[in-house]
């Protein structure tokens, strides 16, 4: 099973590298997120970038969004390019195909997150005049890494689930765009329409939480959602069902 999953990851990465025509074009495509979140924002924030929880959002948000877009192509793209049936006609077990696709996405998102972290660290140190090399706050670094992993998994599984149902890559991408809009704008809307009393209660409930606590509670919640959606994806990913689709 592990070998089969690794084979799928190998294939997914090969395809991903050539998605824009060549691996050079792929690297150029990555330049924008890395430049914005790894150079521009860290330089603006200075050494605070390594200490503030706000920096977490930078290397969590972008990889999660990108992995969802990548996953939109995972099943719908294979169906659209007529490669899915040939893949299903091989000896690969259903779960190896599913996990291979999901893990290829998670790996891509994590590598992107680490690249943003590393470039951000270099950017801050090159522009900061304090003697000695500055490092990330350990809590932020490890917590961010864990949350990044869990959110990448979430993005990957959601992407696969949408891709499974979509008739085309375009449809999958559109659906994912709507989901992302809801996820990112719903909190803003809620904050504006919630009654004052509810807001006060929420503030009181969250006040005692430390950064560590927020990361732990948030991480546990995302993990639970990950596991539930993974179980759903496993149930939905069936050869006979995919052939009928």
């Amino acid at each position: 099973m592990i070998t089969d999953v690794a084979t799928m990851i190998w294939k997914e990465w090969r395809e991903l590298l050539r998605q824009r025509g060549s691996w050079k074009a792929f690297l150029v495509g990555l330049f924008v997120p890395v430049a914005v979140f790894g150079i521009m924002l860290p330089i603006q924030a200075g050494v605070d970038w390594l200490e503030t929880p706000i920096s977490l959002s930078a290397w969590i948000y972008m990889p999660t969004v990108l992995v969802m877009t990548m996953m939109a192509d995972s099943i719908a793209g294979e169906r659209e390019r007529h490669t899915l049936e040939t893949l299903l006609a091989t000896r690969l077990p259903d779960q190896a195909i599913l996990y291979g696709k999901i893990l290829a996405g998670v790996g891509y998102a994590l590598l992107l997150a680490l690249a943003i972290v590393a470039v951000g660290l270099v950017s801050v140190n090159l522009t900061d005049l304090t003697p000695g090399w500055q490092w990330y706050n350990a809590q932020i670094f490890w917590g961010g890494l864990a949350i990044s992993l869990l959110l990448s998994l979430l993005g990957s599984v959601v992407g696969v689930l949408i891709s499974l149902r979509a008739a085309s890559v375009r449809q999958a991408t559109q659906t994912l765009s709507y989901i992302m809009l809801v996820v990112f704008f719903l909190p803003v809307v809620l904050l504006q329409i919630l009654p004052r009393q509810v807001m006060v209660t929420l503030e009181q409930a969250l006040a005692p939480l430390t950064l560590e606590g927020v990361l732990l509670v948030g991480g546990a919640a995302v993990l639970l959602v990950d596991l539930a959606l993974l179980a759903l994806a496993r149930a939905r990913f069936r050869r006979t069902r995919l052939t009928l689709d």
Partner: protein
Amino acid sequence: MDSAIAIRTENLTRDFAAVRAVDGLTLEVPRGIVFGFLGPNGSGKTTTIRLLLGLLEPSAGHAQVLGFDTRRQSDAIRERTGALLEHHGLYERMTALENLDFFGRIARLPRTERHRRMEQLLTHLGLWERRHEIVNNWSRGMKQKLAVARALLHRPPLIFLDEPTAGLDPVAAAALREDLAELAGEAGVTVFLTTHNLAEAEKLCSLIGVIRNGKLLAVGHPNQLRSQGKGQRVTVYGQGFTPQILTGVKGLDGVQQARLRNHHLEVQMPPQTSTAPLVRFLVQAGVAVEEVHREKATLEDVFLTLVSEGSESLGNGALLSPQEGPRSEAARA
């Protein structure tokens, strides 16, 4: 299961809502032969392959492929078979070598053997020099060749080819047929080939099944099918054929089928039937007859007669019954 049989189906049926795509298919395909599955578009050929590969579950009946049940042991079937389905299924963003490498990894071929086999197949198909090219830029013929190489990569004892030459120009199709015949012959694999190209079936297949509306109409060796067609084809060259004359010809005694093609008339008649009444009728109708040819019925004639409605006179009674054909063939094998 009899080891001489590669595929055995019994009353295999598949429904899609109200449509019965495969209807009570009972068939045996002996090992080591090229079996041609002929039928018009939408006759159930592709659905049959999907059922045999375990990609679809039958609504009724059952099938065994290489001794494995398609419902319960489809993993074992897919492990031992190669497939070139309706579409070539190549990853067009990847190179030829990467495509084969991926499927070689899936088949768990050791690295050295994988590379040796890839080189062997690509060299044989004349693609070795272009192995590092992205497949997307290739012609359809080259892609089909590569897909054939992929199907044969892990030396499966059985391969499924779903209309492998469809959409190819005649030269590319002939080249692919030649490669297929050579590769399959060398390896001694069983080939389950669906096609509606009768020349292809005649050239490649030692056993042919004809399917229409999901039902198997006949099975037999191409020669058996031809000889038991109990007919002759009369071709009349001349000028002045009209649709009214064609209708009149169809009404003549002994005429089983008639059609106009490129300014000549093709008539299907029982053997030994005199063509004199036909020629007399044509001349009287005003056709300037230049030449009349008589020949034995071709596979195409038999096929067209079988699949066309209202021509039951040359149906199952005249040909091998579906049950009789493959079993007798299997016994010989």
